[in-house]
């Protein structure tokens, strides 16, 4: 084989990297460098502003794992986990229904996806009014003749359920679009064949759609679990973590910015990252990602 001249060889090597420079620089500057920073801080007692910091070894990690109350907030994630079950079920239902011929199909697709496009902070503010005493929710219930005199964010359970409900409303759209894409990628002949064989809608779902979207389903479950563990925007904006709605991330933010324990908060963030990685790993072991073969 003929050897290429050195210059050409170098160019061949260099070209892909030139294309990669922009995304790599962005990725490193805005993702890896801050994460590396955080890792370094997690071994220090830095307060977030002082020019001096000292290394404390694993002190912050010892602190986190010896203070059980820091992990109690994960109970709140249970509400969001339960909510994501509802969310996935709803998304699956809508995706299936809207993948068939339904009137105003595109309109409903838009309605379901729209909330996902709104900024989470804005959603927080909107729903504060929604849950207010005499607010939108109360007036709507009033139209149906149900006079509720309930403080929706008033007790811990009620507040967490309400917030989880907002979360479902917001994230349903993303799940729905993922499912819809997967459902529509299933070849149409399969349904026809199934119909000829006398399969009803439920059987079509059970034996064609469900296995066909399994990879997307398992991805969605992983995203939902890690999302439930790291809920932040909605409760932070709406209640600030008051009335038993504090999540692990809110707690971490408070450690860093209220009590100026940037070192400890960085360690908490690293711990959360490890927990999510571990949960994902376990999940992948339990439900391996098999190749799907419908035909």
């Amino acid at each position: 084989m003929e050897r290429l001249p050195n210059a050409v060889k170098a160019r061949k090597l260099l070209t892909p990297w030139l294309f990669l420079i922009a995304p790599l620089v962005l990725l490193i500057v805005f993702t890896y460098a801050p994460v590396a920073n955080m890792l370094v801080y997690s071994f220090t007692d830095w307060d977030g502003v002082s020019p001096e910091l000292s290394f404390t070894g694993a002190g912050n990690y010892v602190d986190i794992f010896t203070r059980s109350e820091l992990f109690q907030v994960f109970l709140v994630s249970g509400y969001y986990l339960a909510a994501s079950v509802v969310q996935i079920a709803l998304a699956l239902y809508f995706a299936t229904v809207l993948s068939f011929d339904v009137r105003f199909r595109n309109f409903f697709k838009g309605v379901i996806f729209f909330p996902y496009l709104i900024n989470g902070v804005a959603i927080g503010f909107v729903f504060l009014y929604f849950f207010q005493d005499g607010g939108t929710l109360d007036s709507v219930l009033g139209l149906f003749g149900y006079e509720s005199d309930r403080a929706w964010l008033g007790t811990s359970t009620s507040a967490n359920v309400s917030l989880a409900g907002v979360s479902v409303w917001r994230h349903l759209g993303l799940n729905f679009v993922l499912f819809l894409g997967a459902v529509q990628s299933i070849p149409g002949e399969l349904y026809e064949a199934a119909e000829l064989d006398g399969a009803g809608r439920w059987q079509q779902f059970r034996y064609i759609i469900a296995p066909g979207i399994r990879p997307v389903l398992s991805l969605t479950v992983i995203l939902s679990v890690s999302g439930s563990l790291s809920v932040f925007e909605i409760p932070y904006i709406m209640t600030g973590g008051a009335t038993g709605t504090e999540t692990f991330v809110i707690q971490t933010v408070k450690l860093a910015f209220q009590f100026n324990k940037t070192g400890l908060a960085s360690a908490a963030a690293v711990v959360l990252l490890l927990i999510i990685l571990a949960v994902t790993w376990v999940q992948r072991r339990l439900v391996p990602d098999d190749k799907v073969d419908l035909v």
Partner: protein
Amino acid sequence: MNHRRSHRGLIATLLAAAIAAAGCTGGGASSEGADAEAPDDPSKVSGTITVLTHRTDIVQDGTMDRYAEAFNRTYPKVKVEFEGITDYEAEVKIRMNTEDYGDVLMIPAVIKKNDYPKFFASLGTEEERSEKYRFTDYTAVDGKVYGQSPIGVTPGFIYNKRVWREAGVTDWPTTPDAFVTALKAIKSKTDAVPYYTNFAAGWPLAQWTTVNGSVGCDTGATTKLAEGDPWAEGADLRVADELLYDIVREGLIEKDPTTTNWEASKPRTAKGGIATQWLGSWAIIQFRQAAEQAGADPDDIGFMPFPAQQDGTFCAVVAPDYNQAVNVHSDNKPAARAWIDWFTEKSGYADDNLALSPLKDAALPDVLKDYEAAGVTFIETEDSRGGEVKEIDNASEVGIYQPDYRQELVDMARGAKDGELDDYLAGLGERWTEAATSLGS
């Protein structure tokens, strides 16, 4: 050619660079200990200075530029630029990791007092400045002063005079019990919400910590926080927290505290929908403006001290607002210093905000005429150990300057959370004193 190895090499290099960058936390302290001396001749001092301020409202409406114009009549060669920052604390805290945080700025609460010499240029000795100015010990480190607040504020209840009159209460309550009784009268005789917690905004609950000093009329109240249990029987914070608890437990607050709205609470108070809120004298002007906008009578907005008396008189603690300081890295220290001196003494900023003047010989503002008539004693708490109190607060994660523990207290009082007040306050006290001990004070 082994592609795989070269990839790894590159990624390793990039990661190493990222980690090296991670090691830096910002500027060294080379300028530490610099002084910002006042210029002798106003006509000679020159330069452009940037002033960082939390008052975005008066930057936007041009008030700040009018101050700068007036300043230029004395200091014609100094150009003053303003940078209003909405999320002042968080943003300036991060900027202070660099050297670029304006020439003049308000000292963020997060900066530890002992770090002041690393960030700010000294304005002079405490001995010399305290003859003329109030609040010098709030920013003094080793005898040198690093900041000066342009106004003084005193905490108190903003209340609607008309509503209180309608309820038949004309004299300020003198004990917490009498205060609760007054609120009960408001509840039964008027339509107003007797007390509005502003629970959702949170920070108005944190204001209750400013009660410290007014109950015992003690200038050493801050030192007491550093030395003992703030929730010991009869201690100022305990008295305050018990009053708040009682108000909530008696159902004298808004129906749903979790969805309160601070901005809307101002016109509601002005119009008589809300009777009382614990805030501070700084809020009077905002409530009066809200009254004007809502078409209510601004004179209905009243201000009263915490319901506790020592020897038959009320006590009001005067404390600084944000302290203005000169960036130690500034290239225009004389001009920056000139701005702070002028703004503190000659700008009229304190009068414009109906606030107390930072000058010791100044008269009380009109809004506190009621205080003068009632013979309220004004005290300043000594702040030499204020830095320590903040450190204990952070270490213990109690957060006396944060809303969280009082939000829990309110939840407990209204039955949304289990627990007894005594146990709860005892628990806070235990955490506090433990942290104080472990910090070795």
